[in-house]
């Protein structure tokens, strides 16, 4: 009875797709937060990873954030907010330093890691489609990607998008 109810609920579930095109630490959050939350609210979610977004499906993640060209990036430091001039962002090592600072902040504030959110997405049956064209273009190896990755292309996304209530591009 409970199972039949569950199946019925699934049939009537709302659907959402998210196209993920960016692979930096800051851009990784919005799609995974929305995908996992939507799944928790019984939404059937499909994520399509293309171009730089495809690195988010690498088994080993080494995501970074850069202050370059991002004047809104001001990190809280000792009660103040510190932003970095673009000139400083260009210096080798600054991207790594900013990335470490951001990851420390994420941990300190009880924000989930991208690895944790991605695992939660997989556990809640979020479909994660990797773009075949991007794999070819950037010579990426399927074996380096998580097992949950499905392979597809634009038409695969279109099929989901046409029957979805929400389609987002990030």
């Amino acid at each position, binding site marked *: 009875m*409970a199972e039949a*109810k569950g199946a019925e*609920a699934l049939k009537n579930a709302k659907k959402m797709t998210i196209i993920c095109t960016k692979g930096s630490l800051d851009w990784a959050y919005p799609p995974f*937060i929305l995908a*996992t*939350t939507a799944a*928790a*609210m*019984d939404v059937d979610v499909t994520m399509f990873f293309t171009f730089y977004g495809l690195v988010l499906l690498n088994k080993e993640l080494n995501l970074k954030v850069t202050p370059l060209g991002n004047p809104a990036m001001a990190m809280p430091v000792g009660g103040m907010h510190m932003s970095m001039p673009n000139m400083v962002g260009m210096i080798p090592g600054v991207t790594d330093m900013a990335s470490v600072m951001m990851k420390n902040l994420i941990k300190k*504030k*009880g*924000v*989930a890691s991208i690895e944790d959110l991605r695992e*939660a997405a997989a556990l*809640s049956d979020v479909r994660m489609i990797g773009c075949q064209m991007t794999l070819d273009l950037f010579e990426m190896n399927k074996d380096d990607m998580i097992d949950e990755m499905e392979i597809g292309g634009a038409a695969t996304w279109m099929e989901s998008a046409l029957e979805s209530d929400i389609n987002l591009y990030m």
Partner: protein
Amino acid sequence: MADETLDAKGLNCPLPILKAKKALTGMENGQILEVLSTDPGSVADFGAFCRTTGNDLIEHDKDGEVYRFLIKRIA
């Protein structure tokens, strides 16, 4: 009063919701989940979560820095 308690203190969006969903999934209809959270955003979020999923937010209150939600599992 609650059948289960979820301690989501110190966790930030969307973790309290994700953990609450997981806890509810393991419970029977009619059972009550108590969620403790320190995330001020969880006040709006648990309301939206319950309205959307059909679960019943029986009550919520605040004790110092801790928000407390009682959710009755409906579906």
